């Protein structure tokens, strides 16, 4: 077959480009360094802000926000991240901020990017809502497979079944100079823990709130989620730490989460009622105001896959 001359330089350039891409990927993966930098957002309070992306070989699953509060008695950690390695590096980063011991880990919900770092904290009591512990047992294996597939070598050594998690039953607790209030909400999953540090006014919402990052809905109950957003909005806070996306000092992220969720549900529901099939719903335009959200198209496709069948069942019954 004759190869047109015109294409040869392009072909060569593409080859070189590909080689460079490969080399860069190999280097990033080999270091396996999450480069966690604690960001102070209030007195005694720090967060690690993850990328507004999907799990990948490049980010190693660092797509999530985790945090810690340095009380006079010791450090309380909120969520442990997507891998054993993340947990270890988080612990290392915390030790550069304070030499106080880590005394407690709180897990907001059962999604893998929030609890798979637990192994790095096995010497510390780890707490989650009782329902969350059940859900980890139910879905943990599937999550682990998925993350090994998507984040590859970053996951090595990560296992969830070896770590004991205790049920959090308290509504409130005073740890030295910090009073923590615990809210058992739901809707993103069937158990979502929201934590308010009354001493600083910092509110950790877990994944009930996303900020400039598209919501994930594999276990969502939108009706319950909206109710939880109302309750979160009623809480008196100064700073809000969403599960994904930037920290804020206003109700913006709550309203944004509600806006997208209401749009998503009403769009899919109406489309089903008007006779659109699933592929037609996937092709519907997404309003411009959501255009800057991270992972928009992919999460929209996922959500249609989760939510369309729910509404379809209603029209066939």
């Amino acid at each position, binding site marked *: 077959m004759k190869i047109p001359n015109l294409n040869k330089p392009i072909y060569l350039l593409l080859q070189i480009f*590909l080689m460079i891409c490969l080399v860069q990927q190999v280097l990033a993966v080999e270091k396996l360094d999450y480069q966690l930098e604690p960001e102070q957002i209030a007195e005694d309070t720090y967060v690690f802000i993850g990328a507004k992306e999907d799990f990948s070989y490049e980010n190693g699953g660092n797509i999530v926000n985790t945090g810690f509060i340095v009380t006079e008695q010791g450090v309380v950690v909120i969520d442990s991240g997507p891998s054993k390695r993340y947990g270890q590096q988080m612990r290392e980063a915390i030790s550069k901020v304070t030499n106080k011991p880590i005394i407690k880990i709180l897990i907001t919900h059962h999604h893998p990017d929030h609890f798979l770092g637990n192994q790095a904290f096995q010497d510390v009591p780890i707490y989650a809502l009782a329902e969350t512990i059940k859900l980890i047992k139910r879905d943990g294996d599937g999550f682990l497979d998925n993350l090994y597939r998507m984040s590859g070598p970053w996951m090595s050594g990560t296992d969830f079944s070896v770590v004991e998690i205790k049920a959090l039953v308290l509504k409130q607790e005073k740890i030295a100079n910090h009073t923590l209030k615990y809210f058992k909400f739901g809707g993103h999953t069937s158990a979502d823990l929201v934590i308010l540090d009354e001493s600083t006014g910092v509110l950790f919402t877990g994944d009930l709130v996303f900020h400039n990052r598209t919501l994930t809905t594999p276990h969502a109950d939108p009706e319950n989620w909206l109710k939880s957003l109302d309750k979160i909005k009623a809480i008196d806070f100064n700073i809000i730490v969403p599960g994904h996306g930037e920290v804020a000092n206003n109700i913006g992220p709550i309203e944004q989460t509600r806006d997208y969720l209401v749009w998503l549900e009403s769009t899919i529901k109406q489309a089903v009622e008007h*006779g659109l099939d699933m592929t037609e719903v996937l092709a519907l335009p997404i309003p411009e105001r959501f255009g800057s959200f991270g992972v928009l198209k992919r999460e929209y496709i996922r959500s249609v896959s989760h939510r369309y069948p729910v509404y379809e069942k209603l029209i066939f019954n």
Partner: protein
Amino acid sequence: MNKFQHTFIFALYVSCFNFCFATSQVDPLDSPSWESMHSKILNNEPVIFDDRVQISMPDFAEDPMNVPVSVQVNNLENIEEIVIFADLNPIQKVLSFQPFHIKPYLSFRIKVEQSTPVRAAVRTSDGSWHVGGSWLEAAGGGCTAPSQGRAAGNWHETLMNVSSRSWIKNELGRVRFRIMHPMDTGLADGIPEFYLEYFDVVDAGGSVLAKITTYQPISENPVFTLDINKEILKPINLLGVDNNGNRLNAQIEN
């Protein structure tokens, strides 16, 4: 699929770039199984890769048991049969659709076991196949998992029950219907294949509007969407059979 595989596939694309440029007879999806699909499913008959044949589906399978797929054929006359297949599925043939008196549009859901091209091949009366399609990325597990009805054990209570809805939109009538059936592939341990084999879509005057032949990769409790001429005599009937001889005989009421 991870980044390395993406890069690899991209590299494959690049390496075939010049070839694709030169002729349209080379598989634009560069599937390793194209040659075998061509002989096994299209009988080595003449093939044209044709943009008028469109598969619409997401580029990845969030739920490998239920991947939505629509096929649409535009401006192509004398269509005899539309065959849907997935090159790298353990069972490749998904469905055959013969639109006798109906628009060449059909949507349904499929089970996939791994990343694969999904294609529609349209045979026209001149004996050639017009082929369109795209790659679907999937982590797998769709074909080797037991159906939910099988797992719950209650599938027989509703077997072959049909629910439907219809709409009138811009001179066209649309029907969507669900047929209750486990659609077991036979690839899950200890569960024999058990699937709907075909059904005819028949109008009230007895004329067959379309014939749909279904294979194991069609999702459990299959849902189909068809666009029909709104003057069609109602009610429409669905008449078919599964591989165990159970009959489908349902009227679409509304």
